[in-house]
């Protein structure tokens, strides 16, 4: 867990949510700092959207408290929480023009006309949707719709923005564009943002901190690089990274010079940073190494561990190539530059540095 945050913008304390007998969120704690961009990442059904809806006040929680800007909003209506929300399906009111969509919340709140016009003008300028103001949502493209949806949160002039998979309905190119725009928006506004996604690239690129969730529990909450390089358990290791991390099953040999042993493979773990004194207990474990951390050819020779193998399958991916091979009878993939020409059956030499690997307990899945 990260250090205590002195003045959290959003603070969730011991939050639980049950639907009947099904427990969706279990005594969850999360502090979000002022102006922080936090991403809730996880597979579908992990409770990330549910958590966001709880923060928004759209779901009644079973236990715990929610603070926004130091105010206990646990029982407050969504409109009184000082939040703006952007939905996956945009959720624009189809019968209203863009302008009416943006002003709806303000009109409901009974703001004076001049103020409404001012706020719409500002939001439209920031999001560059001025030419669209008189159009109906049906006459907008997906990207424009999502921009309007962000605008609707923007005009509310709130402290906290909630994004519920806002880019999932867009095609890959637009998604990348809007991702950058959201990042720029965050830099400009400096608001607290909580962003739900199942897309690890969105999470890695946008987040100040990522909360990886599974089964209603936050598995790891940390900076993207830390989560990527030092995942706390096998689930986090496998969920982040594409192509996925390689896992080799084997045995941890304890002692002064700990080793990882599998069929015909023994990797010295001298350079590996164990958590606590895990290096002193022998047990079955899983050795995880990312495809880009495996060296090939010349570069392999200088690595602390090298092995001979043959190429099984070659997957060209454009920018680079993914090569599948076997190590100790277990499947392993690694990345090479696209200009390396490898064919099935080629004999190769690979190497790796255990310092960049992750070792997990075979039973609990926790990092060793």
């Amino acid at each position, binding site marked *: 867990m990260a250090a205590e945050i002195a003045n959290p913008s959003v603070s969730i304390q011991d939050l639980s949510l049950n639907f009947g007998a099904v427990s969706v969120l279990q005594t969850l704690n999360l502090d979000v700092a002022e102006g922080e961009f936090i991403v809730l990442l996880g597979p579908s059904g992990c409770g990330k959207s549910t958590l966001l*809806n709880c923060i*928004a006040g*759209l779901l009644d929680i079973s236990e715990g408290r929610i603070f926004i800007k130091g105010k206990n909003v646990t029982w407050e*209506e*969504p*409109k009184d929480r000082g*939040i*703006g*929300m952007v*939905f*996956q*399906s945009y*959720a*624009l*009111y*189809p*019968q209203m023009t863009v302008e009416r969509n943006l002003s*709806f*919340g303000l009109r*409901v*709140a009974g703001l004076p006309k001049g103020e409404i016009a001012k706020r719409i003008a500002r939001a439209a300028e920031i999001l560059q949707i001025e030419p669209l103001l008189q159009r109906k949502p049906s006459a907008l493209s997906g990207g424009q719709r999502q921009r309007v949806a962000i605008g*609707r949160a923007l005009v*509310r002039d709130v402290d906290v923005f909630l994004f*519920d998979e806002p880019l999932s309905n867009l095609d890959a190119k637009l998604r990348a564009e809007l991702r950058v725009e959201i990042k720029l928006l965050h830099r400009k506004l400096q608001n607290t943002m909580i962003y739900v996604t199942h897309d690890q690239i969105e999470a890695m690129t946008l987040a100040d901190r990522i909360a990886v969730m599974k089964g209603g529990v936050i598995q790891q909450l940390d900076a993207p690089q830390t989560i990527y390089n030092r995942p706390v358990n096998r689930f986090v290791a496998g969920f982040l990274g594409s192509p996925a991390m390689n896992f080799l099953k084997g045995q941890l040999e304890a002692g002064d010079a700990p080793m990882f042993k599998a069929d015909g493979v023994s990797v010295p773990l001298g350079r590996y940073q164990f958590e606590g004194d895990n290096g002193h207990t022998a047990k079955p474990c899983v050795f995880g190494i990312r495809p880009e951390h495996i060296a090939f050819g010349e570069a392999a020779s200088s690595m602390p561990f090298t092995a001979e193998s043959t190429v099984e399958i070659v997957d060209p991916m454009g920018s680079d190539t993914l090569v599948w091979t076997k190590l100790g009878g277990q499947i392993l993939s690694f990345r090479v530059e696209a200009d390396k020409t490898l064919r099935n059956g080629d004999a190769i030499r690979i190497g790796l540095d255990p310092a960049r690997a992750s070792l997990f307990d075979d039973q609990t899945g926790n990092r060793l």
Partner: protein
Amino acid sequence: MVDIASLSTSPEALRRDGAGPSGPKPRHVLSRRNIFLYGTLVVVALYYLLPLYVMIVTSLKGMPEIRLGNIFSPPMEITFEPWVKAWATACTGLNCDGLSRGFWNSVRITVPSVILSIAIASVNGYALANWRFKGADSFFIILIVGAFIPYQVMIYPIVIILREIGIYGTLTGLVIVHSIFGMPILTLLFRNYFTSMPEELFRAARVDGAGFWGIYLRIMLPMSLPIFVVAIILQVTGIWNDFLFGVVYTRPDTYPMTVQLNNIVNSVQGVKEYNVNMAATILTGLVPLIVYFISGKLFVRGIAAGAVKG
């Protein structure tokens, strides 16, 4: 390299030659399938249209011509006398002002019943679909079960209730009865329609600060024109065609058109004026007929929209 010469005999080349089928598949107008299909349709259409034809033809004949017995032959001498009589002077009991009285009674029954029942049912459906309050499911089931209880069971208890609150025999009483009996099916219709709307829209409106009525009036209502059209058609035709409640809960001077029609057609005194009876029947059926003609397409679309999700 590819050998150019070998291409000329390849399947590729044959396909380009223009030999063999190309373009849309030819269809024969007089295929066996078409004869069966259109033949059946024509027969069925004739079967259903024949009574209407007989009614129109008969209503335009004078009594002497009807007595000849050629019910399918077109009128030799067209007369609108029966229509005028049916509307303005036909006698039922002591009143001799024709169907016009019943027509206006029916209008006075149908309009408020339709408005009242749809207004209540749409709010019911909206609350059931979007505000999942405690016991919503039980409430919904009870309402739906209500739709399966035969009317006959409830007739007498309702007579007593209306008598006790002092509106038995009035149009108000009948309007209330119609509104209540329309509730189960209409609520189901609206609930299903609102359930099929994206949930996120409702959530967005809540974040924007709109409450129960705000969301209903400003978000849901403008989006649900098709289902309102369906509900209006269902209710207008249902209430206009109603006979049972009309005859039980009103008095002769407040009888709806259907009851009056029955009294004209089934009167046992004097000569049977078939032409007047036919004209009266067509006049009574005209309102639902017009409603269907105007809104046929919308009706089908709305029914489909409401029925897809349950």
